[in-house]
């Protein structure tokens, strides 16, 4: 990536904060096995100290306390970070790949192929993405992989449109005509000449969408349409807090940690990506700012 862009990102206080947050979460995700050693073969399975339904406050044994059914919140937040990166990166990668393939094909071949692909994106766009993801996830059943499939299925059309536009504009440029004159054609022209010169801005846009993807994933889990029960998943931890927001008898805030701790984690994660994204947008589009 261009050095001066990074310098400008790090100079701006807001985007620097975003950068620090994202790096912090990346480190947590990377060192999750050290920070919270896994207790079972599947590290994303939350450890459960008993089946008591009432959450317990922070203690020496459970630093962040436990939520409903004694799932450890500290473990959930740490491995939830790793899961967030896993979901964000996987979904963005595959959605981008599909978008790249279809968008480039639509722009390069034009005509009927273009028409079919673009009308298909219209259909996917005609339903709000959370609603469509919700229906797909419900049909496939609660599971992390199924949730990632649902998210990919709703995320790719925007990349397809973006890349189609980029390829169309690059296709007109002189160097493409020049390479055509030199005999380049077909896939070689597209892969070697057009794509490398058109996908760079879309790659930036796509990677900054990770925060949004994780937010949608958490929404699905919150609705009970995401991961299996007992997964270290922020959305699910927050869903488990739903029964405890009214506290116990006289103390309304008795179980504050069940909402605030996983909620804080997802808030800071998404905030980091948004601040970083705003920084890039300000630089790439000087009209805003």
């Amino acid at each position: 990536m261009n050095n001066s862009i990074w310098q400008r990102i790090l100079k701006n206080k807001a985007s620097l904060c975003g950068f620090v947050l994202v790096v912090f979460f990346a480190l947590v995700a990377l060192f999750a096995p050290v920070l919270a050693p896994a207790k079972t073969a599947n590290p994303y399975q939350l450890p459960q100290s008993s089946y008591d339904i009432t959450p317990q406050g922070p203690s020496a044994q459970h630093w962040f306390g436990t939520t409903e059914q004694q799932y450890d919140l500290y473990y959930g937040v740490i491995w939830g970070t790793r899961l967030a990166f896993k979901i964000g990166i996987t979904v963005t990668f595959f959605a981008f790949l599909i978008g790249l393939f279809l968008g480039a094909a639509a722009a390069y071949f034009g005509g009927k192929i273009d028409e079919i692909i673009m009308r298909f994106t219209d259909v996917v766009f005609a339903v709000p993405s959370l609603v469509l993801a919700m229906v797909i996830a419900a049909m496939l059943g609660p599971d992390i992989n199924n949730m990632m499939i649902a998210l990919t299925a709703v995320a790719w059309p925007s990349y397809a449109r973006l890349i189609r536009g980029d390829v169309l504009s690059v296709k007109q440029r002189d160097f493409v005509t020049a390479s055509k004159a030199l005999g380049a054609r077909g896939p070689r022209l597209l892969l070697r000449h057009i794509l490398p010169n058109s996908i760079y801005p879309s790659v930036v846009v796509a990677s900054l969408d990770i925060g949004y993807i994780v937010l949608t994933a958490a929404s699905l889990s919150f609705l009970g349409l995401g991961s299996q029960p007992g997964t270290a998943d922020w959305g699910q931890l927050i869903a488990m807090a739903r029964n405890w927001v009214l506290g116990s008898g006289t103390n309304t805030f008795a179980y504050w940690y069940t909402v605030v701790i996983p909620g804080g984690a997802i808030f800071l994660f998404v905030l980091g990506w948004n601040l970083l994204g705003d920084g890039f947008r300000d630089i790439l589009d000087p009209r805003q700012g």
Partner: protein
Amino acid sequence: MLKYILRRLLLLPLVVLGVTFLLFFLTQRLSPEMRASLYIKDPRQMGALEEVIAKYGLRDNLFKQYGRWLGRALSGDLGYSQSANMPVAKAIKEYLPATVQLALVTIVLVVFFGVWFGAISAVKKDKWQDHLARLISVGGFSLPIFVLGLLLLMLFYGKLGWFPPGGYSLSTDVAIHLPSFHHYTGFLLIDSLLNGNIKIFVDVLRHLFLPAFTLCLGSFALMVRVMRSSMLEELNKDYVRTARAKGLTERAVIYRHAGKNAIIPVITLAGIQFIRLLGGTVIVETIFDYPGIGRFGVTAAQQLDIAGIMGFSLMVAVLFVLGNLVSDILYTAIDPRIKLNE
């Protein structure tokens, strides 16, 4: 212009057809046995599974089944929703007004706060007010609505008891089902006033406030950003300099001159956001147990109620596509520089 609108309107059924077919295809991922079991309430009747499959033709090929659904849908029969315990068409009629009402109140809040914060942000560019407004907007944008919703419930319902969840309280529920209460529009806020019953109006508003406020947050950030940049653009224009030169007070320059023009893109954006909100209410309605179309959709999805899912998505798709068309038209009507294709 008229040609463009007509073309888009003609395309609408095609898109809706595509959406419903896509979703129908997805529901077919469930085995015929699973789909048949939805019709069976009593576990002892599970032996009748094959009969149900035969009766509803659940093993027929995809196109035949879709054709059957479509034929019925066109005649107004969307099937029976197991999750809502009523016909889908009736459920939509019952739940949709509550959601529209919620989205309307939300959009009013979004525009009010968005314009206010955005204008301050622009006028006090790079001062602390600007930083604060931008901080609130990016913070609000990043705080998931389900986290905010739970926190607000904790404070305003649990602690203070001001704003209860649900759509209305028990006494209202009784009152609106009395024969003396006339349902003129289906919107309780309007109907209560038409019936001259202020108590119901206040009650409905109290139940609306928290979900509307929560929902406000996501669109608010965008609104502030648009208002800020539009206001900054206007403040740099010549007519503002003229207004200042002729000695108008800064207040008059900002609110009467620049503000009036800066608000145009905000209004168009509000139109678009309104439609987005209709789709985005699913989470808010679930948290606050608000009896709207979003909660209906979520329950249908959770319980794999296929008729419910199909009816819900059909309605959302029609609203969404129509809404996008209206906002495209609004754009050109307000800003003549934008031309629609063909």
